[in-house]
């Protein structure tokens, strides 16, 4: 499996990363080298093996469904590149 320029464009769009046109082809080469490396996993027989999502087997903890935090809007918006009246400000989304 190898990625072509069209696929690099598609991945970049999915990842929401603008990639300059002149870097598309070299980026494709880099991605193919990495994909070629991870391809070796196909040698491994994983029939009947369950995927591993947690390394330490523990029971999922439960807690009371209650508000325990909050009430500091100013702290939350303090680092925003643009905010207005305790809201984050972004370019117009709905015409």
């Amino acid at each position, binding site marked *: 499996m190898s990625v072509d320029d069209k696929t690099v464009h598609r991945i970049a769009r999915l*990842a929401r990363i603008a990639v300059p046109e002149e870097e598309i082809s070299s980026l494709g080469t880099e991605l193919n080298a990495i994909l070629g490396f991870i391809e070796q996993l196909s040698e491994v027989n994983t029939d009947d093996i369950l995927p591993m999502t947690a390394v330490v087997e523990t029971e999922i903890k439960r807690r009371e469904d209650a508000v325990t935090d909050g009430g500091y809007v100013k702290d939350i918006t303090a680092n925003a590149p643009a905010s207005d009246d305790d809201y984050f400000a972004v370019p117009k989304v709905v015409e």
Partner: protein
Amino acid sequence: MSASKLTDLSLAEARDGLRQKDFTSEELTQAHISAMEAGRKLNAVILETPEKALDMARASDAKLSNEEGGALEGLPIGVKDLFCTKGVRTTACSKILGDFTPPYESTVTQNLWDAGAVHLGKLNNDEFAMGSSNETSCFGPVNNPWRNKAKETNLVPGGSSGGSSASVAAHIGVAATATDTGGSIRQPAAFTGTVGLKPTYGRCSRWGIVAFASSLDQAGPITRTVRDSAIMLGAMAGHDAKDTTSIDTPVPDYEAALGANLNGKKVGIPKEYRIDGMSDEIEELWQQGIDWLKDAGAEIVDVSLPHTKYALPAYYIIAPAEASSNLARYDGVRYGTRLEGDNLLEMYEKTRGAGFGAEVRRRIMIGTYVLSAGYYDAYYLKALKVRRLISEDFKQAFEKCDVLLTPATPSSAFAIGENLDDPLAMYMNDVFTVTVNLAGLPGISVPAGLDAQGLPLGLQLIGQPFGEEALLGMAEKIEQAAGFDARPDVWWE
């Protein structure tokens, strides 16, 4: 005591000196601030906080004078820039975070301040901890205090915790915090002649640490001695309700685990770690380690971890997949830098295109690809299954032994720029360490000797889940046998 003598002290020695009132925390801290300022050529510290440090030191002195204070009272340490520190800029060494100043403190650093530690400054690392050389940082590379005998080129300090390893090796801080996702504590420790401990997954809270790959990330200390590592871990570890993956099990007195008797202990030697092209020096170092532990009373057993060669490929699916998801939050809306666009999508794309460096972009794109429709099963799900096989390998090996002994890295520190254009060559640095993260186990890198170029080499011990005490006890035996007391020539002042 003179300033240079104060920076010579290990964490444990400095702690004892403070308790005996041989010197004050203010004197100790000032000596380290001077070392930090004199060491700027190393580029290990990206934000110095000397005033904060002196305030904290004076508060510690007040406690110490009343025979009060915590386990780390008055001890100056550095903090990897991946840990959010309240009111102190935190960037993960990425342009995309700009001048982000957290309104909260990570649990691990809060634990350290609660124990009395003094905050010297924020330490350089690879951007979002993605790298093995500290060269992907937006603040530029860190220089390893160690140089080879020719002394013509500067070497990398390892990564991603390169500022942590370099600052501890250069005696800028008595210890440093670090994080390890695929080897980012142990590999830099091995490259700088320091001790790096990656605890069991869940031993330390991840809350407030900038996330890279959440199922693999774990915080731990870099120190100059095994005893210091034990003391630091004791202060960093513990259950935290804010991190559901942190484990609710008591934190033992790790320092009490030192001086252990190894009689009857079994040390496993995994044959698959004898990789193709392994240098004679690494081979000899490993054999030396085996002999040392045998002399200390341990029994050596051969074990097999058959899926070892698949660990790196599985890691380079799982870690980028998790990273692509974790790093989706950097969109120029709530924090960090923003590049304007005509619409929301363009703003996201421009912000992320300009804000992420080349390696981070590469990994986000790999992660996006392996999680995308049509490839999820072939790549991501497959990697999660291989991860289980790797974990099962360890479980079976641990039926025959208590700990495993391996080399920490395939080589000593390399030159800045040497592997930068070849991602796969860079990834090979983690060949001995990455398995440990996939299985969630604790691992420690201990300095064991110098190579022909006069550069440090490390041995790695791998333990069972929550087996940090056994690991530290055995690491101390390697430390004693190796008698590693070499220090880099000071060229950076």
